[in-house]
């Protein structure tokens, strides 16, 4: 069951194709002509401040709410024209647990099995494995209303994975969870991705996005303001790069400032903070300089902005 999917220039298939996606609530344009692609096998982080349009976008992508304009193709299926076929191939983990609290974990999973058209033997086998993996098997016959938040979140992840989807949508999957549940979920996501599952992750957690995502898209006031790999975003945001370096003996600042690619050098304690327009050229110059002068480099760190800083810079521009 494959849809008609396009590939990018590197030959990788796009599993999500969004063009001019728009959603209007009254007089407010919550999502404003958003376009992006998510490639097969990647973890794509969708970041933005509260009210930026992240969850609205994710809900339109998953066919939960209708779009007012644009188009969305999921695994080659137009979500408006073929919603059932598209939904059959992805799983959704929303921010708030939405398992049936009056049912047991096992009954919830069997219901999902029925809704995804799985035969009973396969549904039972998958449920057993997932509950074991997520540490819920012993509590499988307990009603969900007795579960902690972490257990509920793990259960809805199991419910989303029951039919072995090719694509997984997650909305703040670890928000407010204990360390154990967070680690369990993150390690499962990594393992799923390693096995080929594409992941679309909506999150506030920059550290999580930084560690998990191959690419991130940042949305502000309903518009995409940046899409790239986290490291590229970090380096792209500052035209002037900073490098922190220390040597095994004293060096004059004028010597460092004169090196190729270096625009300035300032002493901070026992280190030098170098400013450079081109990070790569500056590092090469520093290494050549140390070799020529017979000076050992003790430490060398590139001081790229954190993803937090990138996020704040890109999403705060409107306010500044």
């Amino acid at each position, binding site marked *: 069951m494959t849809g008609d999917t396009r590939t990018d220039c590197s030959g990788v298939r796009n599993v999500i194709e969004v063009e001019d996606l728009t959603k209007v609530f009254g007089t407010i344009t919550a999502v404003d002509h958003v376009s992006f692609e998510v490639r097969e096998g990647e973890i794509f982080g969708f970041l933005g401040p509260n009210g930026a349009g992240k969850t609205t976008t994710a809900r339109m992508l998953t066919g939960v709410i209708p779009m007012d304009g644009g188009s969305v193709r999921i695994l080659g299926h137009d979500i408006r024209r073929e919603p059932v076929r598209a939904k059959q191939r992805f799983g959704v983990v929303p921010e708030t647990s939405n398992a*049936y609290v009056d049912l047991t974990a096992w009954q919830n999973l069997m219901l999902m099995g029925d809704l995804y*058209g799985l035969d009973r033997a396969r549904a039972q086998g998958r449920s057993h494995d997932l509950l074991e993996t997520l540490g819920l098997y012993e509590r499988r016959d307990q009603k969900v209303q007795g579960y902690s938040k972490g257990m509920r979140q793990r259960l809805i992840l199991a419910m989303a994975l029951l039919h072995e989807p090719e694509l997984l949508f997650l909305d703040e999957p670890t928000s407010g969870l204990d360390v154990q549940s967070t680690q369990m979920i993150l390690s499962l996501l990594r393992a799923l991705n390693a096995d080929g599952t594409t992941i679309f992750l909506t999150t506030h957690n920059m550290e999580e996005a930084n560690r998990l995502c191959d690419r991130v898209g940042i949305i502000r006031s309903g518009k995409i303001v940046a899409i790239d790999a986290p490291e590229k975003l970090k380096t792209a945001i500052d035209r002037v790069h900073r490098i922190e370096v220390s040597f095994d003996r004293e060096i004059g600042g004028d010597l460092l400032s004169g090196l190729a690619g270096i625009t300035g050098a300032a002493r901070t304690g026992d280190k030098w903070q170098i400013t450079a327009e081109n990070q790569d050229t500056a590092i090469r110059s520093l290494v050549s300089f140390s070799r020529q002068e017979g000076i050992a480099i003790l430490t060398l760190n590139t001081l790229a902005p954190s993803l937090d800083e990138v996020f704040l810079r890109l999403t705060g521009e409107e306010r500044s």
Partner: protein
Amino acid sequence: MNPAGTSEQVRRAWAIAKKDIRIYYSKGPVLIFGIFMPVFLFLAFFMGGRQLPLAFLLSGLMGMTLFFTSTAVSPAIFPWEGQARTLERLAACPITTEAIVLGDMIASILFGIGVTAVTLLIALALGLPLLHGIVLGSAVLLAACCFSAIGMLLAVPPTNVPSNIMMLSSLLKFPLVFISGIFVPLEQMPAWGLLLAVCSPLTYFTDLVRYSFTGAHYFPVAVEIAMLALFTLVFTAAAMHLHRRTMPRRM
């Protein structure tokens, strides 16, 4: 497997029905309401000193039982699920809105028929002869479908506050009982009353039940069956169409 195919969607609707029965119908208060509510209404009229024949009152009791039980829970399921966010879970699953509505209707139909069977047993225990069993069976099945569709129509306003829907539901259900020949025989109704009665599917069901037990009827049996089928089709189609439009507004 074509997940969007009719047979697959019907299977998934059955999964919804099983879930509804487990969560919403198999609860003590719901069962008690379903059985006691019509019984109390019946007793109120039976002891009211109007000297109506038992066969007439029991026909009315069956009509009320099926009507109240088939519409007791179904109007509140969408608001409950919207409130608990489980509706969002269903919306993200490969199941159409029509299949969700059908699933809710199936649960409601089974509940209505189950409780009405108890009333039928009471009628038989009181010595009422069942003259036309097939007509009664067909009428119960059709009316259960029709009333369940009414229940789903009552759930259309996109509110996630169940009490709002239940209030609206009571506002529509009680007047319908009074215009449907349950407490006042159709023969004794004024012209304006009859005009209202023909607009209510409950009228045809009650008259069919009366025919099944006594052989007497007001409208031709075939017309009554056809009217119930027509109401069922129209209400079901309307419920499915309207829920498809309003469901996203519950998210």
